[in-house]
Every structure is written in C-alpha cells, then in structure tokens.
C-alpha cells in the first residue's frame, strides 16, 4: 500500500494559503509524483527533512532511493547528480545553505555548464537552496550566489519572490533540460505576508520571463527576490507622498535575463533603478545597465542607478547587517533622486 500524502503537503489541494516554503515543498512533491525520474539529494534532507524542513516527510513517502542523505560533499554529490542526469534521472540537489555551493563551483562551472556544448548531452538538474541576508547568519549563512554563476554560459539562474512564482518556477526548473541554480531567500520562506492561495492545478511559470509587479510611468525599478518587496514599499510611498508612478519589474529569472521586459519598461519610463540585495561591484546591475545602454540608450532621461548591499562580506551583528543590506529608505532615496532628475 502506498503511504499517504503528508497532511502539510495538501494545503493547496484544500484551498488553503501557503508560504513560499510550503509552495516549494509542494512543487518538489508534485514533480516527484509526476515523474519517477525526479529524485532528491542533499545533507540532512531525509529523516530531518532538511535544515529548513523543505522535504519534511519526503523520505517516508518516497523511500531511500529517491530522498538521499549525502555525505558533506557539495562537489561530490552535485557531480553525482550530473552523472545521474546523464543516465536519465532528474536530480534536485539541496545545498543546505547556498553559501556552501562553493565547493561545487568547479563541477558546476566546468562540467555541468559545459556538458551540452561539449557534446556530452543535456544536464537536467536543479541545484536549490536558501540564500540571502537579514537573518544574522554572518558571512557564511547569508550569501546570495547568483553572481558566482551568472557569468557561466550554460547555466540558468532562477530567484523567485513569491510563493506562486516559487512553485511554478521550481516545476519549470525541474522540467528544464538545462542545469538550473534555484535561489530561495530564507527571509521569504515563512514570511506571513507572502502566504497565498495557489491554483489547484499543475501550473508552471516559464523560465526567462520577468513579471511586471506594478505598472508605472515615471521610473522603472528592476529587482528580484526579497528586494521586490522593499521596492514595492518604496513605490507605494512614492505614489502616496510624491505622486510618482513607479513600475517594478521582478526578474524572477536572472539567467537568461529577460532583456526585452527591461528594455520595454525603460522605453516607457525613461528612468532605471536596479535594486539587488547582493553586493555592489560586479552585481547584476552592471549587466542590466549595459544591456539597456546597448538597446535603449536614446530613451534614457537619467543615469542608471543602483541600490545594493555594500562591498563587504555579510557581517553578523544586527546593526552591521542592517547597514550592509539595502533598505527600503535607500530605494526610496534613489528613486526620488531619479524621479526628480
């Protein structure tokens, strides 16, 4: 007899709202039901259900062959995922904290990302895990890892900001034939404000398409992840207090970048502010700036600006981390400057 679906994975079925974390669990669970070749690997994902409990009760439901507790060897098990993917499986690897993806940097950039190009065939695998600051995690439990991989052709990078997108994008990632780095901001995992009722159907959110979070006419903010919500806060204040109309583009996928959505918005508003939680130099704002310069220079009525974390490791203590991270008032100040430009 098949085991029963754990209660906590049936919220959407029951029409109840879910957090982003629950949305991710549902996506994994449904994909594993849908496709036998999908399986999970990672540290402490079995009995414990993962450091953040994303895979709680998966082991008892799917068994040891599909929920594999690994040795502490991010390079080893990510490489093993690549090998399994060659043989027709579709691995989803959890990195306990995405900061610890760095031992897998070699195999991801050199082996996995180049596989299709080298003629070794596609690498349908997902590497997912918690990222981001604000949790007093210090330098090794708070990093955003997108820029470690953004420069590697062959990879896709996804970074959702809502429960709905997280579920739909994770499903799309698992079904994608290319390797996907999937970043989950731990500050959003259980954020009550993000709880929402999801469609009770098998939906995907396509990789590579940005989302217009709110339309606006005066200035464009391009952002993603946790910064979407800070940007929305700033935009609302601008609307209320300044009468300025801010358009917000949530990238959702960082690689490939939805250049068209960015350019289109800039052509409408003529002003661009990029907001990212990751550190400043070499952050994604640069690539966005040069794409806009290449494609919409004539439409720009002001400098492309950015609000980001400062160029430092993520510090531990509250006041330091708060100063390190971009805050809503930073977005506000930059957006106001640009609107007045």
């Amino acid at each position, binding site marked *: 007899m098949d085991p029963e679906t754990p209660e906590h994975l049936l919220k959407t079925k029951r029409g109840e709202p879910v957090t982003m974390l629950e949305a991710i669990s549902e996506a994994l669970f449904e994909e594993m039901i849908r496709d036998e070749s999908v399986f999970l690997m990672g*540290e*402490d994902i*079995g*009995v*414990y259900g993962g*450091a953040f409990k994303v895979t709680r009760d998966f082991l008892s439901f799917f068994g040891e062959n599909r929920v594999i*507790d*690994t*040795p*502490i*060897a991010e*390079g*080893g098990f990510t490489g093993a995922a690549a090998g399994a993917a060659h043989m027709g499986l579709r691995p989803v690897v959890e990195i306990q904290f995405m*900061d*610890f993806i*760095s*031992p897998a940097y070699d195999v991801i950039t050199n082996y996995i990302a180049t596989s299709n190009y080298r003629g070794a065939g596609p690498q349908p695998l997902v590497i997912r895990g918690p990222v981001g600051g604000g949790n*007093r*995690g*210090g*330098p*090794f*439990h708070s990093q955003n890892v997108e820029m470690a991989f953004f420069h590697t052709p062959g990879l896709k990078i996804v970074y959702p900001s809502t429960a709905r997108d997280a579920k739909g994008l994770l499903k799309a990632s698992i079904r994608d034939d290319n390797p996907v780095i999937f970043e989950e901001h731990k500050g959003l995992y259980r954020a009550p404000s993000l709880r929402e009722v999801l469609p009770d159907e098998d939906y995907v959110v396509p990789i590579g398409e940005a989302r217009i979070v709110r339309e606006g006419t005066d200035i464009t903010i391009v952002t993603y992840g946790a910064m979407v919500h800070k940007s929305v806060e700033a935009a609302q204040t601008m609307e209320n207090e300044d009468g300025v109309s801010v358009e917000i583009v949530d990238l959702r996928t960082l690689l490939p970048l939805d250049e068209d959505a960015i350019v289109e918005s800039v052509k409408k508003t003529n002003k661009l502010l990029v907001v990212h939680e990751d550190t400043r130099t070499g952050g994604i704002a640069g690539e966005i700036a040069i794409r806009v310069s290449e494609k919409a220079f004539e439409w720009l009525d002001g*400098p492309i*600006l950015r*609000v980001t974390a*400062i*160029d*430092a*490791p993520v*510090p*531990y*203590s*509250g*006041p*330091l*981390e*708060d*100063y*390190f991270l*971009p805050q809503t*008032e*930073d*977005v506000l*100040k*930059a957006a106001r*400057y640009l609107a007045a430009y």
Partner: protein
Amino acid sequence: MSELTLGLERAGLQDLYRSLCLTRAAEERLELLQKQGHVTGGLYRSLGQEAGAVGAAYALRRRTDGTGDMLCHTIRAAGALFLFGGELIDYFRQYMAKGTSPTRGREANVHWFDFQKGFVGPVSPLGTMIEIMAGMTLSFRVRGEDRIGIVFYGDGASSTGAWHEGLNFAAVQRCPMILIVENNQWAFSTPTSKNTRVSSFTEKGPGYGIDAEAVDGTDVLAVFDAVRRAALQVRSGGGTHMIELNYFRRKGHAQHDPQDYVDPAVIRAWEKKDPLDLYRSKLLHNEWASEDELVAIEEETFEECRVAAEAAIAEPYPEGTEAVTGVYTDVPTPHPWTRSSSPDPTLA
C-alpha cells in the same frame, strides 16, 4: 610538588577539571542568555565532548607572544579557547555579536582569532581549516621552528574535499600538524555511517601515510596523554598525525534541533559517560583533589561565567557604519550614497 600521573601535578590535574567546568558553565550560561534574548544567531553545545578540547589543548605549548603552538578549534571545542588564553568575556561578546567582541560583531560564536595566543577560529565551510593549518605548520617546518599545530574537525567534515586536500598536503609536506577527529557519531542529523563506511577514522590514516590512533574522548587524561605523545613525535619531525576522539553529541546539532532522530536510550547511556562526572570521580578517588576543592572550582567557574556574561550584556552593539571598515587593508569601502546627506550619487 611531585608528579602524580602523566607528568601532571595536583595543580595541573585540577586545572583540567577547572577547564572542563568552565566549558560547561560557559555553555550553560549561554543557554540562559539565549532564553533571555541576548544571543544573536545559533547556539551550539559540546555537552559530552568537553574533555576532547580540554585534554588536547592542555598538552600543547601555550604561549601568548606568538611563539607557541597553534590550535584551530571548532564549535565543539570551546574549552580549548580558554586554555589558550581566550577571554571568557570575549566568548560571550562573540555570541552576543557585540561591537566589543574580537571580531567586532562581524563573525559569530567561536569564529575568532588570536595568533599571538595561538588560536585560530574556523570558518563555516567544513574542511577548510585543515588547509589553513597545513600552511601554518608548513611555515614552522620551513623556518625550522619547533612549533606544531592542531586542528579539530567533526566526523562529518571528513567527507569534504578540503579535508582530503589539506590532510594530504600536510602529510606529503610532513607538516607538524595533528588532526583531531571529533567523532561524536553525528553530523547534524546524519549518522557517521552515512558520511563514511569506516568504523574508525584511524583507518584513514594509512591512506595518507600518517599515524593515527583512537582515544576515549570522554576521558580527559586519556586525551591529554594521547595528544602529548603525538605532539612529542610531531614536534621532533615525525610528520602529520591523526587522533580520533570517540564520544557522543548529547545535544542537538544546535539549540533549535530537538535531536528526535536519536534514540533517547542511547543518549541516556552516554550520560553515564559524562566527562566531568568521570573525571571528578577519578580526582576524588585518587585523592588528587578534595571535595571542597572541586566545589570551589565549580562555584568559581560558574561565577566567572556569570560575571563575564553580565559584563558583556552591558556592552554596546557595533555602529552600523562600522560595516564598511577593513574589507581591505588599504582600499576604502564606500558607504551607500543613499545613507549620506548628499542627494547626489556622484558626490558619494
């Protein structure tokens, strides 16, 4: 005074007990502080493992002028810190993320450093510190200094590539380094059997061409003795060495982990092997200490922790603007222009 055992006199034997008590008292104090909301981030216990750090550290050359042995501890080896001259108050400052802490609030818990005193805080990515200690001890060898280094790591860390690359480098280069494997039978929720197929880490020694031995990690004198002997060998050019400590992690991985994946009966069994209790009995039984002396040590260490913690509580958090300092030794990190009074980004 005269030697009672292993070259130790009465004072030394009681020193060891003091260190064990201090370790436990400091961690118990931390738990209290956490309940009171004073601790930033996670809290880790070494309950049942205290004798490993204490026994090992006590066997080394501890100096405060940068000429002694080097030690890299882990989260479960806090006792070593104090023996190497780490201040109790700094320990609490670190956990509380105070601006007065050794890392000025940049890093967590036991991740702090004093190269003069000879201790090196770990970074989180497991395995790395073996590479670092290999290099530290390489410098001793090439300069002909008779210093050695000791690096702690849990059983789980042995699966990492860094562990292998660092240990193999040290072995080949004959670095005067001792690797202590803290085999507490768990890596977070993962039993040792899912990190390695060996039943004892000593089986890994020959694969690196180095000596390896296992010790009862609950017995502070056994640990002291093993490390003392290994240190002698390593210091005299014997190359890299491995020592496995066998014990059990009697608390969850961190405070937030209820450890419900562990059989409670097993935990109860290990309570009988409490390193403090065991050593206390031995001290009394051998008349190396009187009950009064031990009670005094227990009360003193408790009180030291209380006082240090209180003092740390009163201290300030760092200023947020401090976050920009020290990324480089020379290039300044700019403050965000959005925090400045200037409205103009080009002036930032």
